[in-house]
């Protein structure tokens, strides 16, 4: 394998109903840094139906080149069709690195492409760097349930590939009007060649919970005792105008639904303020919230691991502290309104 032939940092751009997934924009930010360090192009690959215009956004977020496969066969994501397009592109233009969001689509596609190329694939990366001269990708990831971090290398194959966790890398601020080179490609795949069909897409009917978008998350754990006790979390969240989060054990106990779960097998959140109440601070929970702006823990056990991960802590009984908090916050906000009225 002649490594010289391989050049450029690529990002697979994930698209959903005409929108680019946030993680793809984050990867353009991360990819830009790698590409600059190497002095090579940053490229986006978009596959879909009616997606060519999205290239504008991809340029604004930092790409130099965008490859587009805009064909009807790509209306829905399917492993076999998308894989064929990406393999086609990779074999034709030979990138040194391809990054994917570690989403269900990104992981599915990357695993298939890695096997066919073949090449190495680092999973769920949280840190990315590149060696300037050799182009070796240094992809680091948590493993063993977050107990360790490992740096994974792929020395003998190109392209090097990694899936990257959402919410870890930072997107650049878009530069309006920034453009680049658009390369429109097509491949010859027929419907008969694809062995799966999407019969139906069913949107979840329950109200969409997006705790990953909230500025304030109030999360509760097993320390709340039972579903009734957990109501305190809802009340505090309401008083603060925040969203409700939970540990896995709480979700498993059925006190709250899975979309509220924070952590390795739940969502990753980075709110400005994160309250962890009656949560012990297991490593699998910490990986999902440790990048929050301000972390406040309330736990009756002074040795709870959560305190080590927090900026501020209160050792105490949630049933004593939280009602006081609700009361004080409600009072503080009420006073503010009064102030406001007076000013007017």
């Amino acid at each position, binding site marked *: 394998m002649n490594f010289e032939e391989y050049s450029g940092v690529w990002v697979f751009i994930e698209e959903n109903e005409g929108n680019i997934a946030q993680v793809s924009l984050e990867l353009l930010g991360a990819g830009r840094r790698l590409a600059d360090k190497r002095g090579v192009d940053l490229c986006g690959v978009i596959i879909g139906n009616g997606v060519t215009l999205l290239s504008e956004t991809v340029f604004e977020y930092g790409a130099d080149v965008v490859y587009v496969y805009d064909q009807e066969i790509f209306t*829905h994501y399917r*492993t076999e069709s998308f894989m064929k397009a990406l393999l086609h592109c990779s074999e034709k233009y030979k990138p040194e690195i391809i990054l994917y969001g570690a*989403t*269900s689509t990104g*992981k599915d596609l*990357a*695993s*298939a492409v*890695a*096997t*066919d190329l073949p090449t*190495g*694939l680092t*999973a*769920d990366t949280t840190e990315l760097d590149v060696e300037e001269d050799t182009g070796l990708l*240094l992809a680091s990831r948590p493993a*063993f349930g*977050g*107990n*360790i971090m*490992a*740096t*994974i290398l792929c020395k*003998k194959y190109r392209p090097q590939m990694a899936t990257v966790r959402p919410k870890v890398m930072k997107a650049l601020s878009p530069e309006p009007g920034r453009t680049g080179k658009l390369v429109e490609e097509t491949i010859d795949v027929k419907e008969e060649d694809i062995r799966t*069909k*999407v*019969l*139906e*897409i*069913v*949107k979840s009917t329950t109200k969409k919970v*997006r705790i990953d978008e*909230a*500025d304030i*998350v109030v999360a509760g754990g097993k320390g709340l005792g039972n579903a009734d006790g957990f109501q305190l979390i809802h009340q505090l*969240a309401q008083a*603060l*105008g925040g*969203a*409700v989060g939970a540990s896995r054990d709480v979700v498993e106990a059925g006190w709250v639904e*899975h979309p509220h779960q924070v952590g390795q097998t739940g969502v990753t959140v980075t709110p400005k*303020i994160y309250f962890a109440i009656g949560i012990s601070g*297991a490593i699998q929970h*910490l990986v999902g919230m440790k990048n929050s702006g*301000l*972390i406040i823990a309330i736990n009756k056990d002074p040795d709870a691991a959560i*305190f*080590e991960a*927090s*900026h*501020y*802590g*209160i050792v*105490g*009984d949630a049933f004593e*502290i939280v009602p*006081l*908090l609700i009361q*004080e916050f409600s009072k503080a906000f009420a006073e*503010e309104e009064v102030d406001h009225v007076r000013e007017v």
Partner: protein
Amino acid sequence: MLHIVACIKQVPDTKIIKMNPKTNTMDRASAPAILNPYDAHAVEEAVRIKNRYGGTVSVLTMGPPPAVKAIKKCIEIGADEGYMISDRKFAGADTLATSYALTKAIDKIAKIQPVDLIICGKMTIDGDTGQVGPGIARRLDIPPLTSVKKVEEVNKDQGYVVVHRKIEDGHEVIQSSLPCLMSVEKEINEVPYSSFPNMLNAARYQPVIWSVDDLEDIDIKQLGLKGSPTIVAKVWAPPKPEGGTMFEGNPKEQVEQLLSVVLEKKELFHTKGGSE
């Protein structure tokens, strides 16, 4: 009759594994080896499909000799046969080399009875990449179906399955030709306590064990560490967070101090909340 192969792995229980603070390595002896929890759901789903349509469930693992215990656990859940490939030459495999070895073993199992469906867990709790399932599917050139949370229909006569695949904000209903491979989510089923007859079976059960030499058409260069494009270059303990300020005093005083810190960020309130 359907023949379903569930792929399973024995893993250290990472929930209770301890780190050696001196060497920053995992003290594997501190954690019992268990059946990867996600794979219990894979086996359970295979058994449910068998109970619905008739057929045989085989489980397959690549691992060191003690992994027989994980196979026995699967027999308890209701699997019929267990296969294990075990050899020093498999050691150090990344997901590409793992899927290669497992595919060769599946080829051999298929000679005993053709395979219609392969079921994997969503991921393991040690390597936790989730890459092995799709890797096997590509090598066998069958469709990979990941994030499966419900199996609606398996129709061997007409050669298709219908499954629900979890996507962001809902699911998609997918039809795929058979044979295919699916990686299943944890929510697909609940694994009940094992029945007494199954436990008896499991206690007596001895799986079929193959070494590299028992597999056909195998390219040694694609196995184990040698066949792995990725290498683990460095392992370290995630930096321990420092810990911050603890508020002192009685609850009322503590709450007051906390309030003053939080209210400094007034601009955050009642602007962009969650959907709660």
